[in-house]
């Protein structure tokens, strides 16, 4: 259980930032949106969502405020800050670079060694 969380923590943070960058959301909404934009291929464990949200808020990438949900209930909405936007940018670039690098290693043919 621990190991999974570690691996996913960095990526989960990125996904949350991306989800929230598309518009302010409450916690459940973030879950739904990630599911939606991954075309239902990615499901986030519900229990790990809120710790991640609080951590991101603590670090200043997102801010929260109370608002009204679709069905007129009070809910806490999160949105991206300017710093968060920059962070998302940096993290995406890093991720892409890493993906390229790993892909390059995995593509190595025997004669290229």
């Amino acid at each position, binding site marked *: 259980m621990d190991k999974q969380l570690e691996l996913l923590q960095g990526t989960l943070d990125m996904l949350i930032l991306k989800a929230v960058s598309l518009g302010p959301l*409450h*916690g*459940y909404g973030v879950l739904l949106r990630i599911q939606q934009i991954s075309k239902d291929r990615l499901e986030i*464990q*519900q*229990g*790990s969502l*809120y*710790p*991640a949200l*609080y*951590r991101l*808020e*603590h*670090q*200043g990438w997102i801010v929260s405020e*109370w608002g009204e*949900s679709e*069905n007129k*209930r*009070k*809910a*806490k909405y999160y949105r991206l800050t300017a*710093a968060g936007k920059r962070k998302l940018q940096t993290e995406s670039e890093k991720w892409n670079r890493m993906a390229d690098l790993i892909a390059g290693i995995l593509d190595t043919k025997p004669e290229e060694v």
Partner: protein
Amino acid sequence: MTLWNRLRSWFNATLRRARMETEMDAELRFHIEAYAEDLVRSGVPREEALRRARIEFGGVERVKEEAREARGVHLIDGLIQDLRYGLRMLRKSPGFTVVAVLTLALGIGANTAIFSLINTVMLRTLPIRNPEQLVVIKWRARQSPSTHNSYFWGGCPEQKFSSSSVSSCSFSYPVYDQFHGNRDAFSGVFGFIPPSGVTEITVKAQTSQARGDFVSGNFFSTLGVEAAVGRMLDPLDDTSGASPVVVLSHGYWQSRFGSDPSLVGKTILLNGIPFTVSGVAAPGFVGLETGVPRQFWVAFAARYRIDDRFPKERETDAKSEWMQMMGRLKPGVTVQQAEAALSTMFASTVTSGPDALFKPELQPQIELPGASRGLTSLRQEFSKPLFVLMTAVGLILLIACANVAGLMLARAVAREKELAVRFALGAGPCRIVRQLLTESLMLAVAGGGLGILFAYWGARSLAEFLASSGEEAWEINVNIDPRILAFTIGISCLVGIFSGLAPALRGSGVDLIPALKQRGSESKRSTRGRERRFGLGAALVVAQVATSILVLAGAGLLVRTLVNLRGTNTGFDARNILLFDIDARLTGNKRSKLGNLYRDVQRRLASAPGVVSASYSSTTLLSGSNMDTMLRITDAPVESAVSVDELPVGPDFFQTMGIPALIGRTFSAADYGNSGKPQPMVINQAFARRFFGKQKPLGRLLSEGDTKTLDYEVVGIVGDTKYNSLREEVAPTAYLPMGPQPGSFEIRAAVDPRALIPTVRRVLAELDSNLVLLNAKTQIEQIDQGLYQERLLANLSSLFAALALVLACIGLYGLLSYEVTRRTHEIGVRMALGAEQSSVLRLVVGKGIALTLLGITSGIAAAMGVTRYLEAMLYGVKPVDPGTFMCVATLLLAVAVAASYIPARRAMRVDPMVALRYE
């Protein structure tokens, strides 16, 4: 910006925690309900939807926990949680909590009290400028000088005690003059002497007694004591024509004069003589002697106005030693340098000329012991006992800590199940250790806090005891200063950490499955390592018992010393004797008439009702001081003069004191008022043996030290008596008819000596209405006062021994009690299988006795090595006294059996059916 946000989040989280909690609650609830609604929309019934939503979400508490952790308040939250939980757990086992806290409090309290006392008596420096530069000026030589007279004041520090040399702090006036002007080694030297009697200060017709010193003009400036009001003494006041001024101490100014600022410049009477108050010293300075505060200081040159003991003629007498001196070393001058330079100067002065005090081969030299803590009579008297007490109290603290550690250990093992559950719920070992440590720290802090209270109360009682039951009226202000407080708190925390650490570490290594199983602590342990695991608790008890033996043995020896001293044969009959002094100054009696006055009083008292016999003497017996002189047989060479004790006495002295007259006669009326030589002398048996051996002493002639005249003739021999102290061997003593000098009275009462006080007052009043009765006490009270240190040691060490005994008892009881609880199941099995109740009893008590015996043997072994440090303080009993050790061992064994009894009874009453089901 991130930092700001972080701070803000942390700030919010810490201070608005409650709100954050509700918000988090609401948020999570919203999430679950939103998810449930989605499920409902997809056709799941509401109840089912909610249930599924909750399950899918996972453990809400865990999420909350992680969320809180993400916020970064985990530490404080955790700490508060630990505290609350710890408090609850401690409340659940009140017996354990109370015993542990009390044990710690007693150990810490006793330590802090003694340590504070030691600090006050031994370690505090004088409140003056640069106290480390201050030194006392002493001389040392191979033998005593040949003086006309010498005065020894208390407080002269004796560091290198040596039987082959003599030293003293008293100098002649010419030598003082020489030192006073010395600027090579010192930046200032001052002299000081106390008045010869009590000084009475009268203000607005109200008289009370005060203590002060005559000091040279540069006293305050050399010490660096400033004036709080007015001005201090200066060298101009110390000249023969100066108008008389007095400086008061700050405390005296406050208590007697209500801090009246207009007092400066007013006149007060000292012994009836008007003095002007020139100023008040800075607060905190009460003179040079710890424990004996001074209320006033008068310039040296003005002393003759109120005290005629050292008249002006003494100032030119090089063979009269009476001045005390202290000096402030010049910066950069070391003590060795100063001693060398001054020794040369001193030796050349006192070994040459017609008034030479020493022969050169006696090697007189100067010593400069440090005086940063003032004069030492209090310290010298109490340093050894206080350190003995400190050792005892340190041992008690050890026992207390071992006790608490043992208790906590037992408790931790009993809580294994609880710990296992917490592990299963996901607590990290770090967390568990932290929680257990917090609990033990809480205990330690509570114990420390209570201990401080005990310390305060204990220190004050101790100081009062010290001050009130001694010969002098000492004033010991024991303050618990911040360093000691910090020390105590540090000790508490250390104890907390160490006694909690072992159980905590053990607790975190608990194996889950067996612990959670019904039979808890029993199963795994009984198969292996049971003895090993129990070893720690048992080892602690053995250590406690051994340490208690140490304390008990020491106490036993000290108590026996006191008993022996009290039972010593004094050589005279101390019962029913009343001692008192009279103050004749106000009657205007000159010294020459004193002799007549004393005889008059004695005659009248002898015939008063209720009085069997009356007399007087220069000093009373066993008062802690004595007079001595050098005597030799007249025809023998001068070098054969020997130091003997001397006591001038009035008529009927031997009869009053109950000293048997053996040979010859005692003094009769004709011997008094008669100053012809040779004077009659009565000697004691020790004197006769020392001087005359087997020969007849009657009629023999003796002379003082180095004189050629026939001074004394032996007319009688009386029995040996103790003179200066009970401990000392009886010294050769010479009794003389007392001339006109002040002394004390002794009267033997028919029944109760104290009942005679009104009679005495009446007799005195008949003679002269100005005669004042002072210092009335019985002879037995005086002897007891002299046993002050021994009483202190015996009382306190007994107290500590009792404490140690109680603590060891509790430790043993706790261990055995826990043992029974732990093995209830096993006991049930045994009894179900047919074991007798008595065998169960033997099981428990047997273990208790085994541990105790082990502790006793190791304790006695340790005691044999340690008690020899007490040797100097013992009397009539050897440090390794088998009788005492046996008694102490038996006592501890008896207590151990009693302590084992209750758990044993509990074990016996175990119902096998219940025990077999017991988890």
